[in-house]
């Protein structure tokens, strides 16, 4: 051990019984966390458990309704990012916060550039100091590279370098490995270990349990806004899952599979868009849930959007009930009965500033009219009925959509398609960022829809979810379908094998061409 004389390492940061409510949801309901110098403290919890709210609070974006935050044993109030900085708390958010148009060096010292005697930016000092930081994170790019020219992993490294330049004593990393390859993750771990050895306290958020044993020292588990346990990182994975979910894992996916699926509803053949997906063909039958699995970037979302008409495709056909849909025509797809619940709920699914009933009736604007005028009463009736059916927790349908929690927002997006009369719902990552309760409600709704003869195409990166909720699982890799598995008997390993298959084929093809 280096530099620590006491028996127990110093406690850098302590959160005690913090509570935070937003309209309609209690995001944090008694969370405690302690971060010591020279440890990697893993924050574990399902989406919606309160991790984001907690770290936003430590970054100064939210203030607790109750509870205390202590830095070096003294109670502090973190009102802004500047306060957090002063306390030595740096956060690397999932959504990176770099300015794409500026260079790496400019980003690293944004707002605190070294100055010359005349008060102008000292470009030379800027470059040399940036270069030194980049060496520390082993990022081999010139400091003058525009950030727009960097890949996601490289940007992540720039963010880490920025945190280092702030001399952060507590470094919070929100799912830093989510966008990294195995090799990049290895590099990141190396840097994190170095920082730990230097005495930095690291709060590490991850969904990959194997990373906990590889890197972590202690684990705090959050569930439904509460910290339910603090355990050593050596705790077995099964135990961690049990703590995280808080109940038996088997009832998490209440799929009731139909004995016999109906006639084909959607038929996709030879769907191709250069650079995105190639020769994709599949059917979805009435009453069926077809899962679409694969790695991020495999082209699943792109295929879904093409089927829905949100984007164009080069060749291939999309048919509903045997009728061919014109490419790139959302309205035609909607008329045929397709609805898309997009991956980016806030950016593409909702009009956040508009009311709930406006959002719910968005896909049927022309429907509730009398003499060309909107029939508000009919509209309100329809919206109320579907909000009740989906158990949307809200404080009035005239409230803005932004006031709802993630799970309830997602129900509004789904409700929009129910009101539009969709028979085939494409759900793209429908439960990302949603609490366990709302998740199960969405699963039950999927059952309800398919029991009534509708169909669902379920895109999800959550393997247990795809396997648990689908009847068949299609797997995509690098823009191609690489296989189909019956969900009831498929294993996560079998899906993963198909999800990386194309890579292997490509490599062998390349080797072949080298030889030939």
């Amino acid at each position: 051990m280096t530099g620590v004389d006491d028996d127990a390492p110093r406690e850098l940061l302590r959160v005690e019984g913090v509570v935070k409510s937003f309209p309609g949801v209690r995001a944090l309901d008694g969370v405690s966390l302690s971060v010591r110098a020279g440890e990697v403290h893993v924050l574990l919890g399902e989406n919606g458990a309160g991790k984001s709210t907690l770290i936003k609070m430590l970054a100064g974006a939210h203030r607790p309704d109750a509870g205390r935050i202590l830095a070096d044993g003294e109670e502090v109030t973190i009102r802004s990012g500047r306060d957090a900085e002063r306390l030595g708390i740096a956060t690397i958010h999932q959504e990176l916060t770099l300015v794409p148009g500026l260079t790496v060096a400019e980003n690293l010292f944004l707002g605190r550039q070294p100055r010359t005697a005349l008060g102008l930016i000292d470009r030379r000092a800027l470059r040399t100091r940036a270069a030194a930081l980049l060496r520390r994170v082993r990022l081999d790019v010139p400091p003058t590279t525009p950030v727009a020219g960097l890949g996601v992993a490289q940007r992540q490294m720039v963010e880490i370098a920025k945190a280092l330049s702030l001399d952060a004593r507590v470094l919070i990393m929100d799912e830093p490995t989510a966008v990294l390859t195995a090799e990049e993750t290895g590099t990141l771990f190396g840097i994190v270990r170095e920082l730990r050895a230097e005495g930095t306290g690291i709060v590490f958020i991850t969904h990959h349990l194997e990373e906990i044993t590889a890197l972590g020292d202690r684990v705090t588990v959050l569930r439904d806004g509460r910290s339910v346990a603090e355990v050593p990182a050596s705790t077995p994975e099964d135990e961690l899952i049990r703590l995280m979910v808080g109940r038996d894992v088997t009832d998490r996916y209440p799929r009731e599979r139909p004995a016999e699926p109906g006639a084909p509803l959607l038929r996709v053949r030879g769907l191709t868009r250069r650079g995105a997906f190639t020769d994709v063909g599949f059917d979805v039958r009435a009453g069926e849930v077809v899962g679409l699995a694969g790695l991020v970037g495999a082209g699943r979302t792109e295929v879904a959007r093409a089927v829905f008409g949100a984007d164009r495709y080069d060749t291939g056909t999309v048919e509903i009930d045997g009728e061919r849909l014109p490419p790139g025509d959302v309205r035609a797809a909607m008329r045929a009965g397709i609805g898309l619940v997009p991956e980016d709920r806030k950016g593409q699914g909702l009009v956040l500033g508009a009311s709930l009933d406006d959002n719910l009736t968005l896909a049927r604007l022309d429907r509730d009219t009398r003499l060309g005028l909107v029939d508000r009463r009919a509209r309100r009736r329809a919206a109320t009925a579907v909000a009740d059916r989906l158990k949307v927790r809200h404080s009035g349908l005239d409230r803005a959509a932004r006031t709802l929690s993630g799970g309830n927002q997602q129900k509004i997006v789904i409700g929009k398609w129910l009101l539009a009369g969709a028979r085939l719902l494409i759900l793209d990552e429908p439960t990302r960022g949603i609490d366990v309760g709302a998740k199960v409600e969405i699963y039950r709704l999927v059952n309800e829809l398919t029991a009534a003869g509708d169909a669902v195409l379920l895109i999800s990166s959550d393997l247990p979810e795809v396997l648990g909720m689908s009847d068949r699982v299609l797997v995509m890799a690098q823009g191609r379908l690489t296989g189909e598995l019956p969900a009831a008997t498929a294993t996560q390993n079998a899906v993963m094998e198909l999800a990386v298959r194309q890579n292997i084929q490509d490599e062998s093809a390349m080797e072949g061409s080298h030889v030939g």
Partner: protein
Amino acid sequence: MSAEVLRTPGSTGQWFTRAVLRNGPLGGLLALIAAMTVLSRDFLNGRNLLNVGVQASVTAILAFGLTFVIVSAGIDLSVGSVAALSATVVAWAATGHGLPVWLALPLGLGTGAVAGLVSGALVAYGKLPSFIATLAMLSVARGLALVISGGSPIAFPSSLAHLGDTLAGRLPVPVLVMAAAGLLTALVLTRTPAGRAMFAIGGNEEAARLSGIDVRRRKLTVHALSGLFAAVAGVVLAARLTSAQPQAAAGYELDAIAAVVIGGASLSGGSGKASGTLVGALILAVLRNGLNLLSVSAFWQQVATGAVIAVAVLLDTLRRRATR
């Protein structure tokens, strides 16, 4: 956020408080009227108030049309020029070429709508930012007005000039036109699918598109409406001046934008209402009228107008933050 609300009122008192809270700008207007009443004995009488209405009418009609554009997160800088062009076309056709008024008037209004359609097409299909497309139209329309008129005013046909008069010797026609345009705007915004689509597009264009809203067609409609309203405003203005002047209404687009924004609309789209826009236009008109009555110099009037715009929007922002 300010979604328009039509609720069954409780007691009248309750209704009034709620209306003021929901319509912060209305409170501002009432305060301004109260101040002017105290400061000038000539302010609060029927004749002067109708006068204020007439002064507000052109700005308000322009602003109603602009409300559609701003609600859908666009902007229209060309309304002043389009107003002048449309009025010039009417006068040129009727006075210059002897066309009957019942033909000349639709021709002029059509010109405004077409100018709007052209801007709309540039925005919807050419993917130009509306700021740029309508900045171009601002110049083109003004230029065409000068070309058609040869640069000098054309007398307005006398039958149309009555639009600048009063009805039954009391009610000024411009105020009636303003009221009609306002009601139409409110109806379109709150009660038609097209209006609801405008709010959706302004709030989140991608979500609107993925919900089956034909965004491009709606943008065409929005700009065409703005052009049409500008044409109406141009005709009203020419009727009041009894001549179509190619240089008329220059800079009016800024007053109109100010009226919409004072009325509580957000320039980033998704919010706005006709009543707010009307209040915004009235605030500007009351201010000018009152300052005139108080013999404040025209130079200081500009300073005061600017200050009122800033304060009004500032207060509205604070009010929203408080009630959110």
